[in-house]
């Protein structure tokens, strides 16, 4: 177990499971960043954030300061929208931030509003997160009472309002343009880009959309300085990152670490290794939407560049670890079901492709596949790389890519297992029993899998 040589700043209280009150947050110097921001010119804040190298934590990793500077000059009102839709399978880092440190998030929202000269911010929160929404709303109310929000932020004469808006439980509404259409009250359809939201977003006005963790980083950068943020750097990935680790590790959870950490360290040092000391089969390194990594890639540095070099994406830094009890065909069929279910249905390749792929995968998993299916699947999904196959790069939004990449990579990584399903006429893992460390057998069957399709 490595000794951490850095101070945890995002979730210092995660082990204690505490939720901060306004008083507690203030006692720790909370809202100091707002005070600092109020004394700065908006452009200066943007400069600092740019300098820190902060990149979006929602998935695409776009530099936040750069995004902010795309706002057209002199066009008002501008809106800030905080993407709290956290629906990417495996991702569970925004929720503790919102539930345990709601004021720190508000701190970030106010600073960002001051930076981008917006007077109104929306927090679009995943429908299922009613607890988080509750906590946030209470914090917002407290902040209004304390004069931190409203027409006159801390007596500065600047206005910042915050609205907490709950979604209705659609993954696609995490996609930034779909989020905006949903927020406007329409069907959550992604929009064609350009125009980008920074130019024409919510109600046709310039709008900045950032992930919860991204916004959360802003006051930290302001108070501790861009240089502190840059002290954790791997190539162009700066700062600390929240890794949501799930799957067959001994200690799943949210880990706050510099992006210099390797996959091996993450699994074997921080998470205590594989459950029952099983063999590692594969890792999904950045939320369900990204290509898979194999055990021989354990030395991958978990930064945006590191994971990309390994042929995948860091995405939302949700690391899903699978041991040798997992049938990769079953796993990918499960994921394909998710994308089939969550495709908004707007554009041809994603609508038809996601459902077709899933139908084929279901057949293969249940022993009804043919070898031609594998070719068909490969031609639809591509090689698990961007802009290959019939979907990726041809859909309106990135959900199309997200549906295709994992399938392509699963096929590339485990083609022999797919073939085995076909040859055997059933899933070789079905009813297969695995030794467990406690001397018991587990029967890895299909009873507990979630059913997306009814």
């Amino acid at each position, binding site marked *: 177990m490595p000794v951490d040589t850095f101070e945890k700043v995002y979730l210092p209280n995660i082990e204690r499971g505490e939720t901060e009150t306004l008083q507690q947050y203030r006692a720790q110097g909370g809202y100091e960043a707002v005070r600092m921001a109020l004394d700065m010119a908006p452009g200066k804040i943007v400069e600092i954030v740019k300098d820190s190298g902060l990149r979006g934590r929602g998935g695409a990793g776009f530099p936040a300061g750069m995004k902010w500077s795309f706002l057209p000059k002199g066009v008002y009102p501008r809106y800030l929208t905080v993407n709290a839709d956290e629906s990417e399978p495996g991702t569970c880092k925004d929720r503790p931030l919102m539930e345990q440190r709601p004021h720190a998030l508000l701190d970030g929202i106010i600073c960002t509003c001051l930076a981008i000269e917006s007077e109104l911010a929306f927090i679009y929160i995943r429908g299922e997160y009613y607890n988080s929404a509750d906590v946030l709303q209470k914090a917002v109310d407290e902040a209004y009472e304390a004069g931190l929000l409203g027409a006159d932020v801390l007596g500065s004469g600047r206005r910042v309002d915050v609205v907490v808006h709950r979604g209705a439980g659609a993954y696609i509404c995490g996609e930034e343009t779909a989020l905006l259409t949903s927020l406007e009250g329409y*069907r959550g359809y992604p929009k*064609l880009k350009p125009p980008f939201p920074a130019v024409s977003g919510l109600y046709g006005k310039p709008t900045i959309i950032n992930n919860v963790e991204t916004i959360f980083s802003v006051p930290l950068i302001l108070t501790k300085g861009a240089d502190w943020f840059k002290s954790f750097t791997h190539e162009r990935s700066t700062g600390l990152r929240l890794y949501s680790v799930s799957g067959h590790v001994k200690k799943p959870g949210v880990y706050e670490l510099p992006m210099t950490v390797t996959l091996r360290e993450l699994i074997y040092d921080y998470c205590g290794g594989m459950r029952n000391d099983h063999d590692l089969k594969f890792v999904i390194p950045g939320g369900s939407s990204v290509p898979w990594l194999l055990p021989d890639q354990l030395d991958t540095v978990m930064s945006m560049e590191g994971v990309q070099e390994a042929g995948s994406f860091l995405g939302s830094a949700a690391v899903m670890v699978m041991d040798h009890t997992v049938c990769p065909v079953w796993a990918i069929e499960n994921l394909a079901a998710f994308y089939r279910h969550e*495709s908004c*249905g707007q554009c041809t*390749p994603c609508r038809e492709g996601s459902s077709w792929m899933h139908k*084929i995968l279901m057949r293969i998993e249940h022993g009804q596949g043919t070898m031609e299916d594998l070719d068909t699947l490969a031609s639809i999904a591509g090689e698990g790389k961007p802009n290959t196959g019939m979907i990726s790069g*041809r*859909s309106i939004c990135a959900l199309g890519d997200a549906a295709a990449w994992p399938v392509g990579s699963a096929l590339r990584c485990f083609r022999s297992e797919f073939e085995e399903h076909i040859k055997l006429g059933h899933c070789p893992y079905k009813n297969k029993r695995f030794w467990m460390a406690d001397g018991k057998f587990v029967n890895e069957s299909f009873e507990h899998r979630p059913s997306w399709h009814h």
Partner: protein
Amino acid sequence: MADQSVHPSLKPAPEDVPFVLNGKEVVGKKGETIITVAAREGVYIPHYCWHPSLSVAGNCRLCLVEVHMPNPRADNKPTPLPKPAIACQTPVVPGMHVFTESELAKDCQSGMMEFLLVNHPLDCPICDRGGECMLQRYSMEYGTGHARMVDKKRKFKKPQADPLIDIERNRCIMCTRCVRFCDEVAGEHVMGVFARGADNYIGTFGQGPVSNILSGNVIDICPVGCLTSRPFRFKARVWELVQTQSTSVWDASGAKVTYWTRSNQLYRTTPPSRKYHETYTINEDTAEFIDNITRFGSDFPAHEDRWEESRVRIGEGLVPAAFREAVRQAARGLTRVREQHGPDALAVLVSPRATMEEGYLAAKFARTVIGTGNVDWRMSFQTAEASDAAALAFSHASGDLEDGFDAVVLVNGDYLHQAPVFAMQVKEYARLNEKPLILIGHHHDAYFAPHASWQLHCRPGETAHVLELLALAVRGNDNAKDQLSAITGAQAEELDKLLQLLGHAHRKGLLIQSLEDMNGANLPQDVPALLGLKSALGEAWDYIPVLRDRNAFGLYAAGAQPGRLPGAEGAVRKAWGLGESAALPVDSGVPARLLAEKIEAGEIKGLLCLGADILHNAPERERLVAALDKLEFFAVTDLFRSEITEKADVFFAAASHLERDGTYCDLEGNLARLVEALPPAGGSRPDWEVLAGIAKEMDGRGFDYSSVAQVFDEMIRLVAPDFAGSFKALMLKGPRNDLTIKDPGGARTRGPEYNPGDYRIDGAHFRWKADPLPTPEKASPAPERQELNEGEFLVTWGEHVQGSDYHLDRASIARLLKMAPTAEMNPEDAYRLGLEDGDRAVVHTGSDSIEVVVKVRRGPAPGVLYIPSGLGDARFAGLSAAPLARLEAVEAGKEAAPAG
């Protein structure tokens, strides 16, 4: 100088964008998309969701092309973009290279085609779209030709059927054209997408798309067989039908149509089918939309009441007779009345649905053979003065939509329901090219209101006053501007901007006036007032009066009304073989509107009526029907046995609009051929043969025509001496209702120009050089404003195409085309009364009570209720102008209060 701050349309012209398309240097305009420029350059890029009339959805992904962008980091060398780009949304950029047929583009196209067929039932053999389906076509052109999909296909339950439009969801490709058509062109949000992913489907909410007069167009705009015509369902395969390019008998806009026939039967009516991309298509990449009445209501000649043989009266009964015999009897009857009572005791009525040739012959017949000026078609007006005002309006009419406009002013009226396609074209041109739309009067068309840049509302009876004030304000009279602000409630700054816009040097402005509003009750004041405004605005402004009557303008042009000859008097005398001194009654005629009165007074004793619809649809129908009994002789040509035809002494079985040739003129002054699509039923004859026959029998000279083309040639030389076309060519004339009009100044050209060759022949315009009417020195005094109590309204009305009509009532699915009575009110009033759109209410006007559905629209002025006449029990024609009404809400679930 007016600039963009006055109205966005006053922006500078966009710059040129040179780029490379499939290796060829081409030039687009800044803001144009690849697909638009490519289409103009003759490069076809496959597309489903893109349509020139609709916003860009970018969802079908069929138009993906390969794009190389100049790379500033590498000497602007074109570098491939990482992904293919959709041509329907990607704007052209200087120096870009676009490849529409590269490996990548082809791979994308075949991929999308395969995806679209994954869940498609491919039930082409039983699909009504088969043969004209874009999915079939593209499968052949861009598909792979084999299927890899072996899984179960998605299946939907068939939804609650809309009576006109069949939805077969399994065939839908989710292009959302139908949704966008309803939202954007038809102006009603009635369709939407439901559910998610591959399970999503198209559906309707509210009353479904039927309530909208343009809804039927989703049938053609749907690229596949998801939305099909219910009346046409399973009736025939399209390739077995004979197509006849003709024109609508309903829509005064002059909509072109194709009648699809087989074995003496009309199967369907559609917008014109065009040879395009090596196949026949309907409104593909064009905006040739038609209204539902034209589409579904054109089959009325097949009604069971049809009388296919001519008849003559023997005692009490009408017995079938040979055509020659009927002609002899008619000639004898007319001659007898003329001999006993003089020529002016005879009158000739012409249906407003008669062709120009028929109107022309009727005029020639009345004036030369009978010797009277009593020939008229103008029955629908409130008063005879109103019909004269309409004549004044026609004499000043000019201009059309052909080359668009920079600004348009619409005065009063329910244009969408009186000239649907024309209204749609005006709105669409303004919407798509962002041109200013200005609405003035007591009732604005709710179809235009959401797109209006300015709305000046007033009370009924004040329109002329407002127009006069506006004319004075345009001339710089500030006092008039203040008064205008006071009477319309418009803000002074808004008026300033409006005046700047009107004063801007326009290439072309359009003034449009409805002659239908309240059956023209206010026309005697409103027409001169608007013509005065036209003078104030100057040469660049054209004037188009709008009347629902299909061939009103053509019959006016053909001289089929008192006070008007088909051409210059000298030329007419020469053509008709009349010497200098021979009698040629012109101004002496009795207006049709006074017919009942004149018959009752015994001044008119004999009547020849061409088309009984003019009597059936008359505002004073009952009075007229009763008056017919007093006639000594009554001959009528018509399709049907009816209360009126049974009173005839001689009945001629007429050939319907499907069964005869002739020329119609639309309200923009363009000619269109009515083409014989079916042989005349039984012994029916076109009216021109009837007229020629009777004339010859009465020893009239100059009626030896052997074809309608001869009548046309004689007529057109008088009506439009410089007309260079021919009767035959009119048949081929291009899509006048084609919206792919280019805006010469603006960025957004309206779609590609396609296959121009055969179909575009310039229309004949009649332009009379009427002297401009002067702008008044002073506005006429403002009428006194009536105080309205809570719940009281002034009623304004207009005839509605979906209302009762002699012909429409006989269409096979007339029942489905009718609308329940509605009352449109301003949101201000609705809010005050606590009424919402769709609520029920009872309107009491004097002795009558009508139950209506409330529509809350920004159309009527506050205090004004617009109730389309002819819907249900709503009949106002003949009442005093703007009757006072009391409106009572009906609580949901309760019956309406009894009348009284």
